[in-house]
């Protein structure tokens, strides 16, 4: 590679040639887009340079511009009139937030992260991203730079937020998968698991940011396409939430040097993986958390002295997107030879596109430059003036005096033709699994198997590798209970030490329900995230949501149909609950193609909902571990025969068809009343009832608290005629909780929650027994909490 600029001959290219250029350059541009570029340059009477076409490809990539979510979709659903959707994002996500219109939303969808109000002095920023493709190829580096990238999103929001919490959700293939079944060119799930955890651990711990919330899911369909969701919460002064850029401001790069790492990351992640992707080492970035920590230390000082007007991170597309976005409405000129390089030999387009990590771009008024440089020098951080923001409305890039790119901002940002895509959805039919009450009278083994299934089993061995206490503000840990090892529903932190005001972070994710209906999967993910918030003492009234869609190839109508279903649920359920989306992201093309067999695999359609809630007094928070013998155990909310996609069906090899529905009117009343009961101090413990149903939730509460339970299914409130023991025990119906009430508060609690279906199932016992009596009056589960805890703790402990 030489330091020269090449002209890309597209003016005379036919369709086949255009596509060859796109493919061989890893541009990920389709024919329509290539032709649009051809027409644009045809009118100019010249070919584009490599710098120009690469800049356009980055800016127009799925990764950067989310064209699927903005495209026009012709959608048809079994037995319904076809409809045209003018963008999933504006129609279902953004409109939900507008219709809900919460006054505490400060900035939504416009900056690098969403911003909500916290207290008189500070706001909170929250963003979750994925780093899936890189983590599939190089788990340690991919995951580490995933968390590094989302931290820079918080730092790049407003004028910069201080990162205060990380959250991580991973989806892997089955850890016990035989090596012989491993798809060609992919890494074993165990290796991906280990590498991803280590990458997130080493980056987050070194940055000094607590990792106090997360989840790990397993499904064989994630083997070739693991999912790595990384989230960050930041704290930002209220008067530092807005940014602007003025012509004459200097384009200043702050942080690490630029190398050849991570080139084409944005376009690479906008395509499917195949069995040759493993060799694409240069598309994965290299992380250096201490560099990023130094940048945070330097920039927050500069922010507080008002030394810059705007900031953004160098993520996908490197300088090309950072400078292109900041100067979108005015123009910018950049001189690439000024960029501080790790080594010589980079071509101009490589400097411009490199996704080398730990770099931020800020807009600095010239009179502030010397003070800014002094701060950076004191923290051993490089600050380099690359150019100037202009009023030309052009993005002009120079290299050693020669112009190597000269693009109209208007074409770059608005020239992308809006694609039209088609989508269909046809409800699947799976074999149904009847109740097993006829064949068995004892579900103890089922309960043990559920607790030991990798999706439910303890994740303590991972959680302990993350520093969840740094910064000193964690008040509800990810691990709770008498031995600090029970599974907390959410974490609670006090971002301002000494203040009682707290933040809850929780998540919901149910890809298994997508096998039945992605609408129910998405609705349930929202419900689950909100349940986790409510279970530790939050309210849905003060909760905002983030959406992260990870999907297969949206160019395939069935995959896109699933995306439409999920997006519709997001609108319906979020507006019913009044919980706005403040930020989100999508990662599509999570598919694997075996180039020899032509076999094609997609991940299960996966929506992660992350929730953030502000609470006024952390002293009212509760945890899920039972607290004392003789206290009463209630189930709150109706149970239905909803086992489609459930873990119980799963361990018996079934999917079923009745996935849990969300009934928002009843559910909202349930959550609101329960929140105020918790606030009143009547609830000693509370646990979200989800994977594995009442059986798993009650068992977890018992062994986390170190006490036994005697329960009876007779009092489980149902919304249908369900009376099979296994259905009642393991149904995963939404909007349910298990709570522990002291006998002295029984009347107060029951009066308060009147109108919400509840049932007193039994009591906490001093003895470590765990006994559940079925509808016929005989014990159907009879064991000890030690046996259950051991089943739950053993699988992932190595």
């Amino acid at each position, binding site marked *: 590679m030489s330091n020269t600029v090449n002209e890309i001959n597209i003016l005379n290219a036919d369709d086949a040639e255009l596509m060859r250029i796109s493919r061989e350059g890893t541009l990920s541009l389709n024919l329509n887009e290539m032709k649009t570029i051809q027409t644009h340059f045809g009118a100019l009477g010249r070919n584009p340079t490599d710098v120009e076409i690469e800049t356009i490809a980055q800016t127009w990539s799925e990764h950067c511009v989310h064209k699927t979510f903005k495209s026009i979709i012709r959608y048809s659903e079994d037995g319904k009139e076809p409809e045209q959707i003018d963008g999933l994002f504006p129609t279902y996500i953004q409109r939900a937030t507008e219709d809900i219109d919460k006054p505490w939303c400060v900035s939504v969808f416009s900056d690098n992260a969403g911003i909500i109000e916290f207290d008189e002095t500070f706001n909170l920023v929250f963003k979750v991203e994925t780093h899936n493709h890189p983590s599939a190829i190089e788990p340690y580096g991919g995951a580490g730079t995933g968390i590094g990238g989302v931290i820079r999103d918080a730092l790049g929001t407003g004028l910069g937020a201080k990162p205060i919490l990380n959250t991580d959700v991973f989806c892997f293939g089955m850890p016990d998968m035989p090596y012989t079944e491993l798809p060609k060119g992919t890494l074993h799930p165990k290796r991906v698991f280990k590498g991803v955890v280590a990458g997130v651990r080493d980056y987050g711990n070194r940055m000094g940011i607590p990792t106090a919330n997360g989840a790990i899911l397993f499904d064989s369909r994630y083997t070739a396409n693991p999912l790595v969701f990384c989230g960050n919460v930041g704290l930002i002064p209220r008067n530092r939430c807005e940014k602007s850029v003025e012509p004459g401001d200097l384009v200043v790069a702050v942080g690490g040097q630029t190398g050849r790492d991570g080139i084409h990351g944005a376009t690479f992640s906008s395509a499917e993986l195949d069995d040759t992707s493993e060799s694409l080492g240069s598309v994965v970035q290299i992380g250096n958390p201490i560099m990023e920590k130094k940048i945070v230390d330097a920039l927050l000082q500069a922010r507080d002295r008002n030394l810059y007007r705007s900031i953004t991170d160098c993520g996908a597309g490197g300088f090309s997107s950072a400078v292109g976005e900041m100067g979108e409405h005015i123009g910018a000129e950049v001189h690439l030879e000024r960029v501080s390089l790790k080594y010589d030999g980079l071509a101009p387009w490589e400097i411009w596109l490199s996704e080398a990590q730990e770099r931020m771009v800020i807009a600095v008024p010239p009179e502030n430059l010397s003070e800014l440089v002094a701060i950076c020098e004191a923290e*051993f951080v490089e600050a380099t003036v690359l150019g100037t923001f202009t009023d030309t409305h052009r993005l002009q890039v120079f290299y050693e005096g020669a112009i190597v790119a000269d693009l109209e901002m208007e074409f770059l940002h608005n020239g992308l033709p809006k694609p039209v895509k088609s989508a269909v959805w046809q409800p699947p039919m799976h074999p149904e699994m009847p109740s097993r009450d006829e064949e068995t009278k004892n579900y103890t083994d089922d309960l043990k198997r559920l607790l030991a299934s990798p999706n439910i089993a303890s994740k303590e061995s991972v959680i302990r590798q993350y520093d969840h206490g740094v910064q000193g503000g964690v*008040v509800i840990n990810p691990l709770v209970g008498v031995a600090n090892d029970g599974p907390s529903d959410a974490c609670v932190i006090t971002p301002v030490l000494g203040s009682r005001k707290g933040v809850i972070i929780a998540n919901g994710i149910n890809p298994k329900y997508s096998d039945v209906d992605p609408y129910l999967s998405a609705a349930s993910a929202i419900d689950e995230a909100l349940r986790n918030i409510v279970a530790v003492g939050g309210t849905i009234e003060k909760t905002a949501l983030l959406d992260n869609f990870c999907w297969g190839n949206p160019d395939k109508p069935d995959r896109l149909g699933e995306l439409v279903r999920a997006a519709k649920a997001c609108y319906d359920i979020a507006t019913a609950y009044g919980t706005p989306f403040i930020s989100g992201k999508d990662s599509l093309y999570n598919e694997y193609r075996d180039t020899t067999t032509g076999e094609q695999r997609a991940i299960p359609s996966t929506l992660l909902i992350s929730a953030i809630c502000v609470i006024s007094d952390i002293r009212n928070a509760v945890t899920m571990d039972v607290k004392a013998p003789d206290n009463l155990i209630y189930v709150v909310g109706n149970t239905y025969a909803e086992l489609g996609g459930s873990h119980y069906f799963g361990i018996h090899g079934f999917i079923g068809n009745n996935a849990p529905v969300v009934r928002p009117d009843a559910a909202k009343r349930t959550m609101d009343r329960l929140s105020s009961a918790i606030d009143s101090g009547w609830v000693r413990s509370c646990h979200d009832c989800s994977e594995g149903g009442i059986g798993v939730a009650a068992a977890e509460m018992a062994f986390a608290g170190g006490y036994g339970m005697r329960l009876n299914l007779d009092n489980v409130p149902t919304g249908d005629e369900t009376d099979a023991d296994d259905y009642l025990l393991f149904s995963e119906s939404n909007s349910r909780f298990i709570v522990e009430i002291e006998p002295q508060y029984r009347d107060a609690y029951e009066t308060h929650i009147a109108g919400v279906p509840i049932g007193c199932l039994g009591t906490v016992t001093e003895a470590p027994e765990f006994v559940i009596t079925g509808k016929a009056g005989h014990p159907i589960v009879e064991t000890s909490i030690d046996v259950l805890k051991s089943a739950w703790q053993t699988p992932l402990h190595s």
Partner: protein
Amino acid sequence: MTEPKVLILRTAGTNCDAETDTAFQFAGAETALVHIQNLISGKVNLSDSHILAIPGGFSYGDDISAGILLAVEMKHKLTDALNQFVAAGKLVIGICNGFQVLVRTGLLPGVSTSNNGTSEMTQRATLAMNTSAKFECRWVDLETQRSPCVFTKDIKPSVYLPVAHAEGRFTAPVDVLAELEANNQVVFRYADSEYPKNPNGSDADIAGICDTTGRIFGMMPHPERFLTKWNHPRWTRSAQTQDTTTEEGDGLAIFKNAVNYAKANLL
């Protein structure tokens, strides 16, 4: 001047500085976060402070081994300032990475009592990789030992604090360990020798030590993470686990002791 001054030392990779700062403020001190560069350049004088705190983190990424680069920097670029500070009877505390730094400078366990005549700082112990071979974050019970340590004067016999480290296994030659015991320099021990109660496999379950004067103190657990009772991992079970008469966490006493000592002896 009524409030003792605490200098909280930072450098690239320090990350427990803000909460250490808060801890000293809660304890009534006047605090300043100072980058080591500003001490080396002379922009800030160490001698203006009464207490030097080296917080936790991953100084310089813990490259080579935990704390060593910062230790070398302090030893060679701040030699006189440090010696004068210690000689003036002022206080030094190192927490987690800060403890690793103090051990690698030789300030802890301090100059050998059996080796009179030389006062050169040399490293005589180390904090090695945990026996579990990984980073671990968990709360541990500590037993307070009888020691001259001014930071732990009159504190509870049993203290509960979190650890979060990969390199926290205190180990030293047999004669150094014997000397520590003979001089009562062991300040905290993990309450049990078994993993995970001894989370890293430290010799003699050592969690924190001081020098023979009791004015230089280092510990692996994090007292700055337990300033109020709501930091306790089981506060929601409060009646069973905690003293209900106070809202203070176990960690705060360490900072208060330092501030009180400075008020009484250094102002």
